[in-house]
């Protein structure tokens, strides 16, 4: 055979390999093909192609592997079991940028499914190689490496700690400053995933100077970038007062309030999460937010959004109100009670209703003024209904009961309490009656109103064990009225009167 024909055989083989690997990569983009590919044993075929001489075949094989591993975790486990990872990690250090991108894609696809797979990726020594990739010039390579690191750090605190120990954080902060938009997004998301686990990790991220750069990007027009930036800042601020103060010192307020009106709903949600995490630590931070007009913005946000998006907003109002009574008054004055009332009424989900009930309880528990504002918004019957409905979750029941208790213990606005007399179960009723017994002895006008509205009748119908607190309250109330009126309203009085007729001897 001549030399040319021998070379031709090799050329044909190379063409065949290229075609195979390109077709597999293309097929792997569609989910319905992947089952078939898996059954055909594509993993064992792709593995030797990773070691091919021709660089394009290597890159396309890596890309195909990445797409397969991305699809589900069985394939990702097959990648791990097939001992492919060490080879990928080794060649990450050596090859050109297309291969690095593809290899980082495979690592990311494997690490995203579960903590064990991510641990397997880390055990192959991928972290050092990925960190070296972060120092490259090409933004695509940096993006893939940062994405892989983010997915690894997402699962648990130990994995995040190992990512930090590999020295990734300063490089990620440098990536955040790059002009390339997608790189910024991925780097911000990776920082968010690292700092969410523990205060030490968040402190490490802050020590690398991340807050200043993240704060600069708050007013960027790109929506996805803003999502990640707000998420990162929220994860940093949530751990401790010092971190929250550092986030606030970066002068994000009041610019952040603008983003509460962003068209993209996840930007709004993450923004509200950030404000909530800052507000929950101390009264001073909440005061800062209130003075910047944050409560008005948040109430509008709660009114405009629907569903899970407004949960952080509702919780923020509760946290602010819990700190002190003038903050609670500030919320009342900013029409916060109406907003929360709307949430309680219109939301179908239990956990959001529970959050709204909790927040209302925090607002109303400080003083009679607060309780009056809350009661006047007609909130108490709704809370009662939420407590009594048979199909609600336990969380909602407990929270609405506690909120009712807190508000009732301070409420002296009797018109709002009267509807509760009709429907309340005994444990709530005793608080209601306690409040009546506190107010009625001192106020003649309210006594009259109480009688005319049928309240006294209701009281008489309550059966209480003698010696319990409820009986004492009923006694106190009965003592406010002359005996005839009490007897008139007590049940069975008409029968008693009729019995007197029977014993009466007419004087002729």
């Amino acid at each position, binding site marked *: 055979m001549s030399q040319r024909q021998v070379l031709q055989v090799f050329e044909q083989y190379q063409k065949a390999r290229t075609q195979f690997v390109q077709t597999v990569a293309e097929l792997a983009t569609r989910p319905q093909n992947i089952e078939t590919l898996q059954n055909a044993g594509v993993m064992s075929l792709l593995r030797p192609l990773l070691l091919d001489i021709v660089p394009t075949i290597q890159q396309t094989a890596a890309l195909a592997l990445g797409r397969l591993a991305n699809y589900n975790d069985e394939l990702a486990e097959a990648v791990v079991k097939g001992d492919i990872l060490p080879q990928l990690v080794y060649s990450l250090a050596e090859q050109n940028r297309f291969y690095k991108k593809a290899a980082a894609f495979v690592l990311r696809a494997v690490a995203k499914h579960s903590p064990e797979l991510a641990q397997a990726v880390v055990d192959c020594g991928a972290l050092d190689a990925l960190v070296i990739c972060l120092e490259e010039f090409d933004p695509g390579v940096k993006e893939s490496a940062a994405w892989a690191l983010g997915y690894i750090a997402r699962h648990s605190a130990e994995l995040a700690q190992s990512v930090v120990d590999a020295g990734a954080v300063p490089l990620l902060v440098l990536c955040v400053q790059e002009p390339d938009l997608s790189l910024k997004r991925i780097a911000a998301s990776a920082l968010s995933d690292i700092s969410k686990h523990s205060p030490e990790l968040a402190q490490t991220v802050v020590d690398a100077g991340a807050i200043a750069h993240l704060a600069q990007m708050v007013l960027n027009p790109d929506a996805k970038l803003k999502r990640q930036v707000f998420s990162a800042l929220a994860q940093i601020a949530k751990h401790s007062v010092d971190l929250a103060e550092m986030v606030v010192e970066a002068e994000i307020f*009041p610019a952040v*309030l*603008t983003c*509460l*009106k*962003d*068209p993209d709903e996840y930007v709004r949600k993450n923004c509200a999460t950030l404000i909530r995490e800052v507000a929950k630590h101390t009264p001073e931070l909440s005061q800062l937010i*209130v*003075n*910047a*007009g944050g*409560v*008005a*913005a948040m109430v*509008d946000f709660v009114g405009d959004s629907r569903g899970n998006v407004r949960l952080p907003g509702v919780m923020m109002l509760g946290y602010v109100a819990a700190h002190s009574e*003038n903050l609670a*008054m*500030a919320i009342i*004055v*900013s029409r916060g009670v109406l907003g929360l009332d709307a949430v309680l009424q219109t939301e179908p989900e239990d956990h959001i209703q529970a959050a709204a009930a909790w927040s209302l309880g925090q607002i109303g528990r400080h003083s009679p003024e607060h309780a009056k504002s809350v009661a006047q918004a007609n909130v108490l019957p709704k809370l009662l209904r939420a407590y009594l409905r048979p199909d609600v979750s336990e969380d909602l029941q407990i929270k609405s009961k506690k909120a009712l208790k807190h508000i009732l213990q301070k409420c002296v606005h009797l018109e709002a309490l009267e509807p509760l007399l009709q429907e309340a179960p005994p444990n709530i009723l005793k608080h209601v009656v306690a409040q009546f017994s506190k107010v009625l002895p001192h106020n003649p006008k309210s006594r009259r109103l109480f009688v005319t509205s049928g309240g006294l009748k209701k009281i008489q119908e309550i059966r209480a064990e003698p010696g319990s607190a409820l009986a004492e309250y009923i006694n106190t109330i009965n003592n406010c009225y002359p005996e005839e009126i009490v007897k008139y309203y007590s049940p069975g009085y008409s029968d008693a009167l009729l019995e007197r007729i029977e014993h009466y001897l007419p004087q002729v």
Partner: protein
Amino acid sequence: EAEVHRKEEYDAAVRIQSWYRGIRTRSLVKNLNRCAIRIQRHYRGFMGRRRIRAILIDSVKRMCLDHYNKQAAQIQKMWRGFYVRKYVFDYYSRKKYLESLVAKNEMIRSELAEQEEAMRREARKREEEETRRRLRAWAERHHYLVSTVVQPSVFNSPYRPFTLPEETLLLNTRPKTPPKVASVGHGFDPSWRQYGQNQLMVRLPSKLPPLPAKPQGPFRQPEEVRAQRYREFQPSLRVATDYEAYGHLAYGNAHFREVQPERHVTQDRFRTIVPPVPVFDKLNAEYVEGYVEN
């Protein structure tokens, strides 16, 4: 008889004397008692007055202390009220704070509404720009759908009472010709010289002429051959120089290589270390002898 009377007189005398003695002792004792009582009386008064004085001092002290306590309590009362009203809970400043908070909230609400409006306007503008761009791109590519005099197009159908807006869009946009696909090019003609063409623009033709059955020996790399074949014309300096001008100077006039001996510092040549080399003298001559007028 005198003996009897002696006893009676003796008894009487004794009686008188005892009475007198009694009187005297009694008066003495009385006097003594009186003195003692007097002394005791004075002493008791003294002690009593001393005690009263101590009690008086005590009570005066207590009265003073009560007075000071009351005054101090008054001061503290006033101070506590002032302090609480000013620093702990100032009702009026709280009221003012809540009112200013309401005002601030309104301001923030209106500002945020403005910014939201601006953002929406921008988003809408971007959307509109995007749709306009897409329509323009479509119209540029589909100019052939425009109707002619003879044949009305789909958008200008005679069965419809009005023309569709696509027709006007097609008429108004300037059509974009599709990008020219590079032609296959001439066959590989080794005898064809192409002067002045940048070798990067010349493409290698996709099909080379068929090789004869017998290979003709080791071939050089096609790139090398092409580089040699399409090498740029590298003329000598004499040929490349323009006849008429020399850069910005007009060629061959008084300014070209002119010599101004009156501006020389001295007429002597530079002194050399080495003896003069005749070849250099030749080079010092004018480009064409006698061409330039001295």
